[in-house]
């Protein structure tokens, strides 16, 4: 019988003890005596969120296919257990073996969003590992960061031994093999890190020094040891059809956020929206072979017993074999009594037909993400959606029986004026008008249009990386403008409006484009008890306000200032394929309100072709 790290007394006094006991279907147990390398894979948020993440499932499966490695999982203990562990000095443990993380060789942390940064400190701290990489002894696990936020790793740099820049399927084995070799030779931790820094994509922050100008901007970023590369190149998988994919993902006992089979159909996006970081980071767009996807889908349904399957990718409508794949899944799922959860698709005849087949039209809603209210501003952000397309799509759907529409927008986009903001309300109104054009006896009651706005956060490696971000007051002012405009319209009763919290958004802005100095803010917040900032019930803005004050951090410098084009940005040392020159050109085109067409229509020469594959080389054989 498995022995648990926590006593029954603890487990029965906290919420959802199933978060901490492991033993799930398809979780992997190994004999630790026969293992060379123990890897703890962490998602620094609560179990139900972490278990829904595809990337960890892929890497968990990839590592455990090797006999000499045992990869286990660890998540952030929820606040109730966090408190108990601190009081009783219990060391954070992995779910499978229930062994302390501090006894592992590696602790790999995936960093998916900025507001989990304090949870990263929580995980390292509860594991009883020193927070600063330079304070860690020979016995400490090597702490690795990966995921989208590592494209600006600087605010977290001092807490990590190394960052893995790129997709996990590529150089992890190289890193593990190097580790085994160094261990065999009896080399020190630092020597291992030095050698690791030469593996493409591996960034070891302690081997780089940063100097600053008087105005706080970066003067220089240079390696402090000979042989350490000046630039780090993103590593990506070029053949996604041959790449490792988990056919038996772990099935949690408690309901995870994604309680279904997740099939990743492609990586990257051909669209080039200028605010979108993922759209730039994952270039070039690479598709998985449709036959591989069909086979994998069946294998995953068989091995998990899940009653639902969903497709995962950016802009799924752009997957070239989408109709073939979806029609196959509809047939296959009908026989098995499995539901298909559709990704958000461009509304057209195909998607309406498919939605009609797999959803209850009365209950489901249509989703549009125009992101900006006016056509002028949609051209600025390069969102190729026009009002005409939206009204036409909504009209077809209304004729087909739908009556619910969700609209997503951002506020605070570069060049935005109150007129652009009011256009959000006008667009919702026009959609409502289109609905009421349908004769009363043929429509399905009132229509429900839900308008949601989030606040624009400029991200590294986007054409908007230089942009200023609005202040909290500006954001709330623009949300009021939208709200008033909606309330002044004829169809106000058919339109609901929700907007995000602005205080979290500006902190996200700070962490997204921060430099190494921002680590002080993070430490201060954490030391004053701040964790789970991504959760509204636990987020405490005052802790951040106090930390900014105590550390003398200027939000204007990091967030609300437009950066000069000459400025050295903290993330400039990372190469993602897409060049800074291209981003700059797009930043200029944005100001000229010029649209750049998608990769399939015309190559914009972004630089991602250096990876020698994907959409850049489609139709060229």
């Amino acid at each position, binding site marked *: 019988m498995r022995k648990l790290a926590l006593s*029954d*007394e603890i487990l*029965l006094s906290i919420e959802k003890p199933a978060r901490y006991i492991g033993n799930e*279907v398809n979780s992997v147990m190994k004999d630790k005596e026969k293992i060379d390398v123990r890897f703890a894979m962490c998602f620094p948020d609560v179990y139900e969120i972490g278990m829904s993440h595809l990337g960890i499932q892929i890497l968990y499966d990839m590592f455990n296919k090797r006999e000499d490695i045992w990869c286990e999982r660890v998540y952030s203990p929820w606040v109730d257990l966090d408190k108990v562990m601190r009081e009783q000095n219990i060391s954070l443990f992995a779910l499978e073996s229930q062994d302390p993380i501090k006894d592992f060789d590696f602790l790999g942390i995936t960093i998916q969003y900025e507001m989990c940064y304090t949870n990263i400190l929580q995980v390292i701290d509860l594991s009883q590992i020193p927070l600063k990489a330079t304070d860690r002894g020979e016995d400490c696990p090597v702490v690795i960061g990966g995921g989208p936020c590592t494209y600006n790793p600087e605010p977290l740099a001092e807490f990590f031994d190394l960052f893995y820049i790129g997709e996990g399927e590529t150089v992890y084995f190289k890193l593990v093999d190097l580790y085994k070799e160094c261990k065999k030779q009896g080399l020190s931790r630092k020597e291992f890190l030095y050698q690791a820094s030469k593996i493409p994509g591996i960034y070891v922050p302690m081997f780089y020094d940063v100097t600053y100008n008087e105005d706080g901007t970066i003067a220089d970023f240079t390696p402090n040891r000979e042989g350490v590369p000046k630039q780090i190149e993103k590593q990506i998988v070029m053949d996604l059809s041959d790449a490792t994919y988990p056919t038996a993902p772990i099935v949690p*006992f408690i*309901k995870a956020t994604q309680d279904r089979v997740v099939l990743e159909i492609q990586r990257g996006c051909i669209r080039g929206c200028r605010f979108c970081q993922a759209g730039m980071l994952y270039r070039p767009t690479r598709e998985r072979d449709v036959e591989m996807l069909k086979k994998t889908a069946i294998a995953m349904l068989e091995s998990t017993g*899940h009653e639902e399957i969903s497709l995962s990718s950016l802009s799924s409508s752009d997957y070239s074999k989408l109709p073939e794949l979806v029609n196959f899944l509809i047939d296959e799922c009908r026989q098995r*009594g499995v539901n298909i959860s559709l990704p958000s698709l461009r509304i057209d005849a195909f998607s309406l037909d498919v939605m009609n087949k797999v959803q*209850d039209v009365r209950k489901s809603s249509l989703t549009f993400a125009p992101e900006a209210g006016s056509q002028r501003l949609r051209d600025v952000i390069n969102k190729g959606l026009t009002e005409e397309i939206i009204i036409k799509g909504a009209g077809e759907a209304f004729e087909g029986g739908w009556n619910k529409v969700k609209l997503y927008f951002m506020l605070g986009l570069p060049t935005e004026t109150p007129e652009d903001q009011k256009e959000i309300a006008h667009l919702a109104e026009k959609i409502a008008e289109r609905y009421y054009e349908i004769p009363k006896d043929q429509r399905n009651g009132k229509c429900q249009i839900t308008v949601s706005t989030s606040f624009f956060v400029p991200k590294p490696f986007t054409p908007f990386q230089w942009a200023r971000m609005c202040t909290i007051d500006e954001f709330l002012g623009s949300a009021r403008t939208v709200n008033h405009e909606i309330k002044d319209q004829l169809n106000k009763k058919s339109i609901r409006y929700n907007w995000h919290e602005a205080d979290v958004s500006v902190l996200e802005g700070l962490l997204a484009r921060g430099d190494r100095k921002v680590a002080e803010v993070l430490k201060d917040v954490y030391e004053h008890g701040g964790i789970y900032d991504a959760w509204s019930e636990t987020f405490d803005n005052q802790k951040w306000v106090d930390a900014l004050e105590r550390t003398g951090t200027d939000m204007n410098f990091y967030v609300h200032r437009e950066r000069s084009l000459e400025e050295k940005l903290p993330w400039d040392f990372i190469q993602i394929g897409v060049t800074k020159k291209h981003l700059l050109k797009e930043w200029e085109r944005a100001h000229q309100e010029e649209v750049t067409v998608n990769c399939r229509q015309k190559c914009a020469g972004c630089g991602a072709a250096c990876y020698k594959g994907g959409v850049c080389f489609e139709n060229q054989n």
Partner: protein
Amino acid sequence: MKIRIKFAKQGVMRFIGHLDIMRYFQKAMRRAHIDIAFTEGFSPHMIMSFAAPLGVGLTSNGEYMDIEIKSPIASADAIRQLNEVMVEGMEVLSFRQIEEGKAGKAMSLVAAADYTVSFRPGYEPADGWQKRLEEFAKKDSIVILKKTKKSEVETDIRPMIYALSVDGDNVHMTLATGSAANLKPELVMSAFLKNEGFELHSFALSVNRDEVYADIGTEEERKLVSLESLGEDIVL
């Protein structure tokens, strides 16, 4: 075809709540290729009902659920297929055909259950408690204060204790269970400890459910039979 499944829930699975066990079995049925029947309608769900929910923290060797299948399968095959996809701690013990009709539903049949209760190390009462407990259970009435939402009611739990014996450190009891009368083993132990002058600590007991029974006797005389004995093995 109506089927009654008996299963054990042991080890770390004691921390998985009743609703999650239902979800677990829904997925397990698919993995094991059991040809289970679904309800009609736009969102069909598996026809599956559980006899008596088990509290979190308790283990059991006698859990029951009823399902409906569309094509016959030999009991031995079904048990093997299901056990091949179980996690550690979960084991399917029997898979039997039961009579059609609502009256046969496991949930409505439940009348009693067997429990084995022991004190966790460090929580045992003073020496000789075994003897004192057996004497206590023989009293004509055991009145406790039962808290309801609005008030406290005095209840005599003695009639709901059908049997109680102590074997070494293990207490075996048969208690009324189900919708008509329901008594939890913790309540019996807490009444005993109160009699001794102590409060029962919430983590003091380790409890295993051994069996769940239906009552096929008359109003005058109980006749308890295990739920599985009301079904028959399928041999093809």
